[in-house]
């Protein structure tokens, strides 16, 4: 394990930024967001960014290819480019876990090359959560906020930042800043881990469990009468899906530029009425079906296809952002029954 004094953090950022684009969470209007590090940019102390870190690998909008059309002819232009190396610093345990969930979608055959190339070039430096929020429930999904995954795990104390490489990529990055870090023992980190674990136990949502959910439960919940009430006031906006680190549905659309056609992919939301709309009708006709799809996908369908892994990381973003304060915790508690209370 290595450590670096917080006063030297800017130097470390400068060193990293020499070889790769470095993104860190920065405070701004409306909350923290990941921004490109430049001289003078200060890291945010916020627990989490408003948008999740999935943007780095699965951006809200990206061009897939272009076309030129002339008369009856079409020319297909594959303008994919080698991505640049980049480092994302300060990703929380929940968001790091979300990459694993996205990987299972985008890196399964056939591999999504857009996602894969970003994943290959990105180095994740995670940061343990010193002060989890009341909306956090990552523990529910077996995530340890005190010990996040990632290429490098970092712990921040009052004075120092402790760094531990978990992968080859991480080792490489650590060695790049070895001149300003020093070897150290893990005492301070152990101490912090204990503290964090103690806080996690105390959090109001620490008793939420996934016991009642998982693979093979489709029949049990699909026709539950609870969906009517749960979804009855859903606005059908896309806030929950767009702030969610694990929502990965996308749309592919064409944009006619003045020269040709750009085919792009953008985030889509199963909460939107046109998500499944076809020329002859809609297989999910009302908001109830759309709402059900979102939560069934996270709690049942995804586990069905991914060895029981849930597609929620308990980051709590939907809890804070939903305009009507409806969220996965309320869904789990309602469907799961009393035991979950």
């Amino acid at each position, binding site marked *: 394990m290595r450590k670096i004094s917080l006063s030297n953090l800017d130097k470390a950022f400068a060193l990293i930024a020499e070889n790769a684009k470095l993104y860190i969470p920065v405070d701004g209007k409306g909350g923290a967001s990941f921004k490109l590090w430049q001289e003078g940019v200060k890291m945010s102390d916020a627990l989490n960014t408003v948008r999740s870190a999935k943007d780095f690998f699965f951006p809200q909008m990206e061009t897939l290819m272009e076309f030129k059309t002339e008369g009856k002819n079409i020319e297909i232009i594959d303008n994919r480019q080698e991505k640049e190396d980049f480092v994302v610093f300060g990703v929380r345990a929940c968001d790091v876990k979300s990459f694993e969930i996205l990987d299972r979608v985008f890196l399964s055959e056939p591999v999504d090359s857009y996602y894969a190339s970003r994943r290959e070039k990105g180095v994740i430096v995670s940061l343990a959560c010193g002060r989890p929020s009341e909306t956090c429930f990552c523990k529910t999904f077996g995530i340890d906020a005190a010990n996040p995954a990632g290429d490098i795990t970092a712990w921040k104390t009052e004075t120092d930042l402790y760094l531990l490489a978990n992968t080859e990529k991480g080792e490489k990055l650590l060695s790049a800043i070895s001149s300003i870090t020093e070897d150290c023992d893990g005492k301070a980190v152990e101490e912090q881990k204990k503290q964090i674990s103690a806080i996690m136990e105390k959090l109001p949502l620490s008793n939420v469990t996934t016991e009642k959910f998982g693979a093979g439960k489709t029949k049990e919940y699909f026709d539950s009468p609870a969906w009517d009430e749960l979804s009855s006031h859903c606005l059908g906006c896309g806030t929950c899906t767009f702030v969610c680190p694990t929502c990965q549905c996308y749309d592919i659309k064409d944009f006619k530029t*003045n*020269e040709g056609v*750009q085919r792009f992919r953008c985030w889509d939301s199963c909460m939107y009425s046109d998500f499944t709309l076809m020329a002859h009708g809609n297989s999910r006709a009302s908001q109830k079906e759309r709402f059900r799809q979102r939560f069934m996908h996270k709690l049942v369908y995804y586990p069905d296809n991914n060895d029981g892994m849930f597609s929620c990381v308990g980051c709590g973003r939907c809890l804070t952002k939903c305009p009507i304060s409806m969220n996965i915790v309320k869904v789990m508690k309602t469907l799961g029954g009393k035991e979950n209370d």
Partner: protein
Amino acid sequence: MQVNEYKPKIVAFCCNWCSYAGADLAGSNRLAYPAEVKVIRVPCSCRVNPMFILRAFQRGADGVILCGCHPGDCHYTSGNYYTRRRMALLFSMLDYLGIEKERTRVEWVSAAEGAKFAATMNDFVKTVTALGENKRLEDLRCKK
């Protein structure tokens, strides 16, 4: 020597009954106005939805002008009165967002005012040329 003179792209929405005829008259009277002005005929100035104006900018226009019958002379009695309110609010909003207010304009041009049409266009093109390219309401995808 190559002269790289900036020529703005101007979209002029002209009402079918007055301003389009005014543009016609300007043509038949051989009154010159810049070729950068692309005229789009609309049944009434009131047909112009605020979205049309924004999309003209998106597609690369540097200035958008809307011409209709003089207030009181609308072929449909009151269309241009609504236009007047809508555009007043829209232009004020564009200004509020920091978009140059000189890029948008409404003029009332009757079928008899060929000269006014040409003069208006000349003046508008001059104004927009002085402003230069539209950078604040542009869609980069359309600017390759």
